[in-house]
């Protein structure tokens, strides 16, 4: 289990540094080819998003120089970006993969995008054959852990942006937003953003009212909506289920008496007012009316803050889950490391026994069944006695970080060829075929980072 990960992310490096590391999607296969062509690197994967560029690798003996890869590939001079780069080995690397996939390492903890991005990076690496055995298992496990974290904690259930909180509240009032209508009062950027979110969740009709009619028309066109002259605001407002207001008016636009009229016109069907204007457009007294719900920018921000708090609490639980999964992965990988050796050792000695038996059979002459059995049990007994100590040593070594050394020693002592090892466990010890070192021999052309900004 010789995994390592190296890279930069939003925790270690500012965007100016991260963009120098970015690798565009089209260049990924080539970068992967060069990564896996490096000495000692068996498998590799590269995740490159706007918040992180991370290089995952598995090496045969744990000493692959990913720093060198970064220097060569990007054409950095030694020590240039070193303070920004983080590196994890072995279990730390495993844990890092799990945390990244579970969105515990994200800027907004619990966001779901990162899992998709890691899956994409995995698919690319798999397609070019850069991921094929142990790293594959690690990533498959990481996706399972991510799923578990999402299912068993509420880390990803609450929204943490104002627009998505507005959608969430609207859904709590109206259920599905399908077919609901939205009225934008004022043509500000925030209005537009919130409207986009609502439309994405099924809202159908968009009305836009603005003091400058032309701007209303321009915004309405974007959503295929309807611009309404500002003087008709109070007549048309009851048409909408959701009203988002963001005008620059110095006084309130919607007051309690308006709300009463709206409710009458709507036969008391509920209305949701979102006030993102400062100073406020909507009189808070409107909230006292049965069936009208008013949220201003502070209310929305408060919901966001409490959701972030909830996520933080859940993140603690999620971290524990990840720790446990790392331990499980470690155990599985360790036993998987020694099992092939034990099997091939057994097979090797059994082959010897059979060969020796066949050789002396002619000299033994005809044996009675009892004698045949005695010879069998005698030879088997000897082999079992010989194998006992090496096997127990191997098994106990599996719990030890030194296991690879012991495995090597046993293999050397008994002259076990790696090809002879069958693959009973998911993790095979068979090394990947030797790669052509041609690609790595070429000097890496320095890359203009601006080309592959993401």
């Amino acid at each position, binding site marked *: 289990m010789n995994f390592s990960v190296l890279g930069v992310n939003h925790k270690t490096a500012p965007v100016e540094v991260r963009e120098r590391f970015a690798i565009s999607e089209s260049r990924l296969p080539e970068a992967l080819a060069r990564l896996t062509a490096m000495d000692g690197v068996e498998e590799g994967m590269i995740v490159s998003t706007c918040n992180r560029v991370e290089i995952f690798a598995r090496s045969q003996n744990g000493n692959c120089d990913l720093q060198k890869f970064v220097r060569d590939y990007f054409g950095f001079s030694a020590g240039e970006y070193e303070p920004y780069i983080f590196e994890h080995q072995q279990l730390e690397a495993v844990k890092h993969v799990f945390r990244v996939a579970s969105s515990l390492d994200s800027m907004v903890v619990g966001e779901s995008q990162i899992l998709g991005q890691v899956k994409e990076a995995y698919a690319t690496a798999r397609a070019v054959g850069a991921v094929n055995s142990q790293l594959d298992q690690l990533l498959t496990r990481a996706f399972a852990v991510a799923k578990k974290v999402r299912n068993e904690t509420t880390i990803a259930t609450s929204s943490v942006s104002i627009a998505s909180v507005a959608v969430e509240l609207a859904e*709590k*009032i*109206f259920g599905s937003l399908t077919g609901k209508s939205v009225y934008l009062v004022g043509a500000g950027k925030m209005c537009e953003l919130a409207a986009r979110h609502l439309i994405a969740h099924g809202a159908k009709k968009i009305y836009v009212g603005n003091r400058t009619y032309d701007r209303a028309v321009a915004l309405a066109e974007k959503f295929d909506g309807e611009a309404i002259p500002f003087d008709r605001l109070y007549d048309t407002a009851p048409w909408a289920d959701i009203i988002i207001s963001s005008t620059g008016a110095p006084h309130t636009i919607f007051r309690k008496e308006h709300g009463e009229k709206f409710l009458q016109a709507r036969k*008391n069907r*509920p209305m949701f007012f979102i006030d993102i204007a400062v100073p406020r457009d909507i009189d808070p007294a409107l*909230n*006292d009316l049965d*069936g009208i719900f008013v949220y201003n920018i502070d209310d929305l921000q*408060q*919901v966001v803050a409490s959701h972030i708090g909830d996520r933080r609490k859940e993140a603690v639980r999620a971290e524990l889950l990840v720790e446990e999964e790392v331990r499980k992965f470690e155990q599985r990988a360790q036993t998987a490391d020694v099992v092939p050796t034990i099997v091939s050792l057994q097979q090797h000695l059994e082959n010897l026994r059979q060969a020796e038996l066949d050789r002396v059979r002619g000299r033994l002459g005809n044996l009675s069944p009892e004698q045949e059995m005695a010879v069998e049990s005698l030879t088997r007994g000897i082999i079992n006695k010989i194998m006992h100590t090496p096997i127990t040593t191997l098994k106990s070594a599996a719990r030890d970080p030194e296991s690879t050394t012991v495995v090597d020693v046993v293999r050397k002592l008994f002259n076990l060829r790696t090809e002879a090892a069958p693959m009973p466990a998911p993790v095979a010890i068979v090394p990947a075929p030797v790669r052509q070192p041609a690609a790595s021999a070429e000097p890496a052309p320095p890359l203009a980072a601006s080309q592959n900004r993401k």
Partner: protein
Amino acid sequence: MPLVWLRVATVLYGVGLVHAILMLRQKGERSGRIAAPAVCLGMVFHFVSLVETAVLYGYAELLTIRHAESALALIIAVIFAGLYLRYKTASPAAFIFPLVFILTFASAIAQHSVTISSSIFGGWIFFHVCTLIFGYAMLFLSFVSSLLYLVLSRQLKRKQTSPWAARMPALQEIDELGYRALLLGFPFMTIGLLAGSVVAEERFGAAFAADPKVLLSLLMWGIYLTLLYTRWSAGWRGRKAAYLASFAFLVAVCAWGANYLSKLHRFIAP
């Protein structure tokens, strides 16, 4: 034996009730793991108890107050299960389970009533009781939804949602649910009351109208009608509708309780 099943069901509903109360404050995920199977099992025992009663003592036995109570509780529990499957929420449990528990509990500890003879009354009484039980269940459902509506809208206005309210269906869904319950329950209530009056008129003459239960039932029907009317004409929701529905529920409870006062509703052969 039916009584044993009923008592087992009562205990299992009790588990559901405890969970419903716990859920008001906490997330109650752990107790939910026990409560959900307990309630399901309770419903099965409950159903067995009613069927066995009918088989052992005849259908007429189901018309006694205690078995009618038991049947009403079962119908409400089944409605709750339906809501749970449809909306994936157990929030109504906080209102539903106290009633389900009280009804089954009352039924489980009640004295064995005198054997009644329905033969004289014929199938009309059976029809009367069944439609009314369903009407009551629907009325209760609309009452529960107006309470849920009230709680959720208040929390939305205060901008704080408790974990309990967060699991409720959306406000409009609750509203539609209550309205549908009213629409569905009203015809049953009306037909049931009509059937009852026809039979009573025949047996007791016009004097039946002076019976307390009859009067309360009429009042209940009147409020039922008002509820529907205000909803149709003015779209009453939220607070006003909740007050009216609570009043209707109170009268319904009195009308049900009047069973113990009413001479007409003993169904004993004179």
